[in-house]
């Protein structure tokens, strides 16, 4: 056993040397912080540090589950995530199927260049654009609102009912073009012979989409769906945090923003241990969801992540 090990090292030492740096790096920046999740079961004492702080068992979790914020952040997270998936998931698929039918290649390329563009806009700029576009006075929304009703528009960022649509549709706007690439790639792999055979049998273009194209991208659809269900509670921190205002906080506070505010926020009530516990809860639920969904998918469709 030992000789096998030393032989491997001697023979491939250069390759192991390559791996050394990334492995150490991941060790420090990914695995070491994982030891910090013990904080979730402790009461953090600034002077004693993570390792020295006293254990309190599941106290932090109990505190979280009994907190009124628990229900709020959970429902907000799940609501935003589910609505976002329902509204956003089909768009890139439909777009890719349509684009695949376009036979004017220059038009196709132009459309692609334009629709991929928003993907590269940073979250900060994206929210900045949203704020300007829907500005009650300066923005297009405000201008048209005044034009048709004569009144001045309300501030959408102050309205809780406007938060979901703003968040979800801006997400679709930014992501559907880019999201379609995956499906287009799968569609480009469809053998032309299948289409030819279908045409000889008298299939219309629509029937060919239905019976040739859609089955061809089904595995991709399932994988993408697994990923998005697996990250149900992983609603992105960045954009929601930037879109939050005091007025929409009731519907916009999600787990990740809550973790940030309770941990590093400037409210004066920062509690490292509590925040870590909430974060760990989120992480574990995500992991369980991902594994479960993947299991189910591999059972029913033979398509899975692993």
């Amino acid at each position, binding site marked *: 056993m030992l000789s096998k090990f030393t032989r*491997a090292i001697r023979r491939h030492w*250069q*390759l192991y040397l*390559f*791996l050394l740096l*990334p*492995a150490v*790096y991941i060790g*420090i*920046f*990914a*695995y070491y*912080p*994982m030891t*910090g*999740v013990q*904080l979730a079961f402790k009461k953090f004492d600034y002077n004693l540090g993570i390792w020295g702080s006293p254990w309190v068992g599941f106290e932090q979790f109990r505190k979280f589950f009994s907190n009124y914020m628990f229900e709020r952040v959970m429902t907000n997270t799940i609501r935003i995530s589910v609505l976002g998936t329902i509204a956003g998931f089909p768009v890139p698929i439909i*777009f890719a199927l349509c684009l695949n039918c*376009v036979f004017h290649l220059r038009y196709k390329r132009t*459309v*692609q*260049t*334009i629709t*991929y*563009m928003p993907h*590269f*806009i*940073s*979250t*900060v*700029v994206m929210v*900045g*654009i949203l*704020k*300007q*576009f829907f500005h009650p*006075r*300066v923005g*297009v929304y405000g201008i048209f609102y*005044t034009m048709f009703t004569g009144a001045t528009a309300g501030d959408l960022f102050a309205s809780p009912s406007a938060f979901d649509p703003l968040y979800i549709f801006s997400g679709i*706007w930014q992501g559907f*073009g880019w999201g379609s690439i*995956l499906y287009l*790639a*799968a569609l480009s792999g469809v053998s032309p012979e299948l289409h030819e055979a279908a045409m000889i049998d*008298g299939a*219309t*273009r*629509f029937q060919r989409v239905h019976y040739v194209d859609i089955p061809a991208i089904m595995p*991709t659809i399932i994988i993408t769906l697994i990923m998005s269900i697996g990250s149900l509670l992983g609603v992105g921190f*960045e954009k929601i945090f930037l879109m939050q205002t005091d007025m929409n906080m009731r519907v916009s506070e999600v787990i990740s923003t809550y*973790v*940030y505010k309770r*941990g*590093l926020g400037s409210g004066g009530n920062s509690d490292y241990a509590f*925040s*870590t516990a909430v*974060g760990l809860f989120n992480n574990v639920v995500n*992991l369980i969801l*991902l594994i479960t969904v993947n299991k189910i998918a591999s059972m029913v469709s033979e398509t899975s992540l692993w």
Partner: protein
Amino acid sequence: MAEKIKLIRQDKIFYTIVYAIITLLTISVLYPIIYVLSSSFSSGTAVSTGQVVLFPVDFSVEGYKRVFEYERVWMGYRNTIFYTIVGTINNVFMTLICAYPLSRRELPGRKGFMAYFVFTMYFSGGMIPNYLLMRDIGYINTIWVMIMPGAFSVYQMIVTRTFINSTIPYEMLEATKIDGCSDFRYFTMFVIPLSKAIIAVLTLQYAVGHWNAYFGAMIYLTNKNLFPLQVFLREILVMNQIQPSDFTDEETRMIMQGMADLLKYALIVVATFPIMCFYPFIQKYFVQGIMIGSLKG
């Protein structure tokens, strides 16, 4: 014959719908972009009185002049360029040296290493343990915190590994091995030159990531001299903080209030311009990257 005509008519309707959907979606993407561009090239009064809907009104470059007088924007720009260049070099280097050995199927322990890396994609310590790590190793308020954490993405590493596996023939390695070529030499003389496409993909992905990042800077940096552009943008675009004292010129300070919105539009353009400029030329590499990523390795 009758059936053939019917077929064509059905297809015609279908194509009309398809082209309509595509065109509608494209216009809906394009319009906000045009709106922002047009606004940024209008006059301050036209913007603040809500006249700009499609084309610039009272064409002017006033907004851009103001942006370039804004000292914090320059500082942010400079910092962002630095973080992007240094960070990206670090990222690409790490990704390559990690992906190459793992692409060698005969390497003992390869599966173990792979699991070691992949696990971190699905589980992490979380915000506070990460923060405490940065504090303990003295990264808070240093440039390192913008470059080192997240220095390589395991996902990109897997994409790179798949690329190497599928494009560089194994026979080549065997042939060079017979000639006594070491792994180092093989990596630098053959793997790197043959991986140009994936290196382009990695560079662009990582560079865009660095350019657009704000979260790390927000939690780890308090020293304004180190702030990247996105953090300043957040203050101005999202939090509405424009500090008249940032302007050296008294007159500018006076008219600043009315210019605030115009400045925002110009800022949006200035901050996004570098990426948008390069993007059409490198689009195909990005697409390539996604396609390789979709292959299961």
